[in-house]
């Protein structure tokens, strides 16, 4: 959830499964005495660095009743501290020719600046300052709460697809916070106050709950020296709570969401299954699911496109996606947009038949080989985007994974067999799914 993004419409729906492999760019990691984890990704092709501070605290760590507070706090970190005036942080970054922003997800909140390499120390000075020293006023709260409400209006309330997706997640998670939107439910956002923000801040914002990721034209020694000087003096929080969350019960009944909205232009079907995430030291199932999502819904050559768009011509668009970076169980999702004249019921039946057919047909060996080739190639392409590599480390290390897990991932993907994939496909149980229909108020079902 970017603090400010111009074009932010349904990226999650249409993005292909995120690039999977890690590159062999030079990565170094170490720990400061106060528990801050540090990762350095080196790339000296341009005199630029990206400085990112990731907190192991996201919307799924919020207390009940305060949905959206993690993201609200992210906004408030751009207000005053003991040393800086409200807004000064971004002003200083801009005045140094840099760009800064922040984003919140279920399992993390991250702040970043992209600047010329010789401004790294200035960024650390300011980021370390706001880890402990924000000074909020009642007026900050009132104004910024209006901003996040307008953000929710823009991203969600004005967008039936987003409202629909929110309902599907809520139906998927009966007992886990992933069922609550990152930005928050409107009625709870309206009640967020100074105490909500500060109690989240005091509980989670400390060095032993962070991962510092610096990428670009910098050496690990330089980062270590600067980090020890600026972050090192901040004491660890001995009372940092363990991230224990309630778990989903076994799903015994299929769930259905029917969402009607006059603004719907294109009715479609969305399917969600609860599946395991990448677990530290045990990423094999997640690797098989990752490749399964490519096989089923990774574009023109995928199984669903083949069956539903090319052969039966029952769909205008199909996709499947899975992202294993998550602290707790995540979802495997599919979307099918029926062709003109094909009802949602017919579209859903066609999707289910295609999945049955896949279980019988099994994995096409050539397709699997092509997917693995692309994974290997993506290791080369990834080196062209060092900040992307930095993002992978930040998100993985705040989602229960280790540096070793991240580095082992390409090989684990490469080792996935057809048998592993079919076994993973067994996890997509019809009786343990959520099926959503998005349609117009008068639409027939």
């Amino acid at each position, binding site marked *: 959830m970017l603090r400010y993004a*111009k074009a932010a419409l349904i990226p999650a729906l249409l993005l292909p499964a995120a690039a999977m492999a890690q590159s062999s760019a030079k990565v170094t990691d170490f720990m400061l005495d106060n528990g801050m984890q540090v990762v350095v990704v080196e790339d000296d092709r341009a005199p630029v660095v990206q400085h990112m501070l990731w907190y192991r605290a996201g919307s799924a760590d919020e207390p009940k009743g305060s949905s959206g507070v993690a993201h609200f706090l992210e906004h408030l970190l751009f207000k005053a501290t003991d040393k800086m005036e409200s807004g000064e942080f971004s002003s200083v970054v801009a005045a140094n*020719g840099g*760009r800064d922003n922040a984003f919140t997800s279920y399992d993390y909140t991250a702040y970043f600046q992209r600047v*010329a390499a010789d401004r790294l120390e200035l960024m650390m000075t300011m980021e370390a300052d706001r880890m402990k020293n924000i000074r909020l006023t009642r007026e900050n709260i009132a104004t910024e709460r209006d901003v996040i409400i307008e953000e929710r209006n823009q991203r969600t309330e004005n967008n039936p697809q987003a409202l629909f997706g929110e309902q599907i997640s809520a139906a998927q998670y009966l007992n886990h916070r992933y069922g609550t939107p990152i930005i928050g439910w409107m009625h709870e956002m309206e009640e967020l106050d100074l105490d909500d923000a500060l109690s989240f801040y005091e509980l989670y914002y400390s060095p032993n709950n962070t991962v510092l990721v610096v990428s670009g034209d910098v050496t690990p020694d330089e980062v270590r020296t600067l980090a020890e000087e600026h972050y090192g003096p901040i004491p660890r929080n001995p009372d940092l709570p363990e991230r224990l969350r309630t778990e989903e019960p076994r799903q015994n009944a299929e769930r259905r969401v029917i969402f009607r909205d006059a*603004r719907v232009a294109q009715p479609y079907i969305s399917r969600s299954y609860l599946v395991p995430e990448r677990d530290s030291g045990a990423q094999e199932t997640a690797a098989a699911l990752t490749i399964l999502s490519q096989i089923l819904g990774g574009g023109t050559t995928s199984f669903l496109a083949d069956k539903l768009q090319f052969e039966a011509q029952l769909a205008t668009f199909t996709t499947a996606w899975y992202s294993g970076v998550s602290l707790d169980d995540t979802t495997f999702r599919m979307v099918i947009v029926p062709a003109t004249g094909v009802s949602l019921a017919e579209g859903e039946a066609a999707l289910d038949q295609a999945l049955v057919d896949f279980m019988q047909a099994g994995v096409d060996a050539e397709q699997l080989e092509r997917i693995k*080739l692309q994974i290997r190639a993506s290791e080369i392409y990834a080196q*062209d985007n060092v900040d992307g590599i930095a993002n992978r480390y930040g998100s993985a290390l705040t989602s229960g994974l280790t540096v070793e897990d991240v580095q082992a991932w390409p090989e684990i993907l490469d080792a996935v067999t057809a048998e592993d994939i079919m076994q993973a496909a067994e996890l997509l149980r019809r009786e343990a799914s959520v099926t959503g229909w998005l349609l117009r108020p008068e639409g027939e079902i």
Partner: protein
Amino acid sequence: MIRFATALCLGTAIALPARAEVDIQTVTSPGGIDAWLVEEHSLPFVALEIAFKGGTSLDVEGKRGAVNLMAGLLEEGSGNLDARGFARATEALATSFSFSSSAEELSISARFLTENFDASVALLRDAIQNPRFEQTDIERVRAQVISGLAFDAKDPNDIASKTFATMAYGDHPYGTIDAGTVDSVAALTRDDLVEAHSNVLVRDRVLIGAVGDITPEQLGNLLDALLGDLPETGPLMPPMVEPQIEGGVTVVEFDTPQSVALFGQRGIGVDDDDYFAAVLLNQVLGGGSFESRLMQEVREKRGLTYGVYSYLASRDLANAFMGQVSSSNDRIGEAISVIRDQWQLAAEQGVTEEELANAKTYLTGAYPLRFDGNATIAGILVGMQMIGLDPEYVNTRNDKVERVTLKDVQRAAGELMDPDALHFVVVGKPEGLVSE
């Protein structure tokens, strides 16, 4: 606080912006096709960006949407391969091609590994020169385009863009949706697509940027292989158009909680002597950073929006000075009123010395940060050619920004900004606003 601020100012004053470290070569192929190249041999792949100027603005009368549909079909079967065969072949080479079109250009972005150079070029050559345009593929992609049109017709942002464009540009290609209408797309035939192909993909309108593991000789040969057999030229470009924008408000009723407002007035061309002064003016007014006056006044002080920005829409065939804001229906009126006041203030008083200095530091410092990756740089190379710049521009651009004086900006503000002619198109159920 004071001590810290002083230290920051010092830091800003002594630090010079990093330079964009790209060495642009101009290459002419044996067959006479020009391209820009940045050699970067540290990674074994090439990013290639190709743009054919004109894009969807070259749609033939009555065939709106033909260029867009044609571009969508370039990857759906060519040479000996059908749509799925082409996709499988690109996957087997771990290459990627993307084809898109806009009112300015038809663009092709390609990325391929050095080890698969020849096979990738052969595949791309067929997509560019020998698309099959088979009827089943046409029908499949046509359905996707029509589905997209239906989607856009219910999106407040798209409704606002279309309404503004129709008002400002009328019958000119900039005035209509370039994907066409449901009716016009439904009526397109295979012959229309073939005609669109030969009208748009022509040698004298092609611009090329290549970055990566490739030498000038290899690039020259690649250009002739990819593009050598295309027609030399195509039909005339549509004329320049002066946007017809009068002050006021147009409300488009749409039942949604947050209104989207698109606003604009006439703009300034990239070849205008005051262009950089206008860029700096816009940066201060609403250039997208948190520091802009619009962000400060509309978001930071009043919480009326999540985002507000302005931009110079200086395009190939028309220039406008545009902006956008979204606020809930009961607050959009106030947001618009604040924006109007800011427009008036900037027109009358321009910007302050301090604002200008900050905008310069930002723009000059941010410029080299853009050059971060082969594909991004290839895109920049084509973008520069698109507006007639020379390769040396990457080294002189920051000087052009630095040379702008406060007087220049005040003059540009006075001449460019026209608060009485600023028009707002508002899509939603805005309270207290009516069309005027």
